């Protein structure tokens, strides 16, 4: 459990740094639109988490019920691309500064990477309870 504790601490630091970047990109230029990026990246794993309970297991082989799982993956990747595209679009039309765009993308990537790494690191213990 010591390794798990270290992982949790590291991931929480990365998450905090990601949110710091996003909030800094908003606060430095007094334009709070990049805060949407944090909201989008927090919402990104939600469809996968919801729709993964609708489908079958990975090893049962019932591909007929894989439609909701595919829908969840589709929506998840749509949201992730939206999170990266929104600051670029905003910076392109000069609503936000390019520096704010870069910082919010970096922060959003850190937040989403934290979520992915957390779910990948603690998947093993979840499957033990099944």
């Amino acid at each position, binding site marked *: 459990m010591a390794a798990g504790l270290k992982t949790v601490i590291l991931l929480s630091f990365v998450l905090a740094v990601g949110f710091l970047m996003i909030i800094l990109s908003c606060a430095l230029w007094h334009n709070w639109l990049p805060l949407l990026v944090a909201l989008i990246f927090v919402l990104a794993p939600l469809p996968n988490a919801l729709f993964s309970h609708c489908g079958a297991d990975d090893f049962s*082989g019932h591909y007929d019920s894989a439609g909701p799982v595919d829908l969840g993956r*589709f*929506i998840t990747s*749509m949201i992730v*691309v939206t999170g990266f595209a929104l600051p670029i*679009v905003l910076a*392109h*039309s*000069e609503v936000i500064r390019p520096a704010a765009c870069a910082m919010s993308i970096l922060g959003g990537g850190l937040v989403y990477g934290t979520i992915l790494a957390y779910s990948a690191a603690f998947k093993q213990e979840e499957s033990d309870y099944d």
Partner: protein
Amino acid sequence: MQTSSSPRTPTTPIEIHVEIEVRRDADDEPADHQRPDISHGPQFGRQSPTPPSLPPQLPLISTNSSIMSLPRSSYDPRRVCLNPFPEFTLGKHRRTIGVYIAGALFALANWTFLDAAILSAHAKKPLDPPPPVHVTFVDWVPGICSLLGFFVIVLIDKDRVRGEEGFGDSRAVWRARLFLFIGFALMAGGLAGSITVLILKYILEDYSEQFTYYGYANVSQNVALMLSAVVLWIATSSASEYEYNLTL
């Protein structure tokens, strides 16, 4: 004399062999109307050592219905198209990756066009001469057509289009193919419409590069939507092929 006669000798038996095969064909076909699968079966053996993997023989067999004893892997008697759907025997993760890529392409397509629309809406204030052209509803129409076609294509049951799963209603297959045709026609119409808008509205008017970007964004939106539909189709149909190979 020797060199000129020796090439002739191998050519003549080959010609005789071909003539014999043609007569066999003409004799067999009217006689065996009841069981054409058996009449076609030995002909494969005569023509080539690897018979069941011959694609040009498919339409001959597809005209005869209710042949169920043949192995389905090489040729399917219920198949309609000469060229079958592309069969990918990919692993399980390819389906996941394909769905992710399709979703990313879908979002990228829409954000490309939304970028142009937002840019056009924000181009009013800073420019001293007013911008000559804006993104209007005409620019939105091809994208809406492509989106409708995308949803039509995605929502169709793939097994019904192929007609492989043995559904009792043969009209369901017909209707599914009609819907698929409508979906692809909508997507192709959206793509053609976007190119039309690009040429008629932006290129022929000789706008600067800042404004022709709206037209190019429109075209790339429709291209990316079509790519997304293709990737999603391949990804979702590869898994059924995978399962199909497991069951055989």
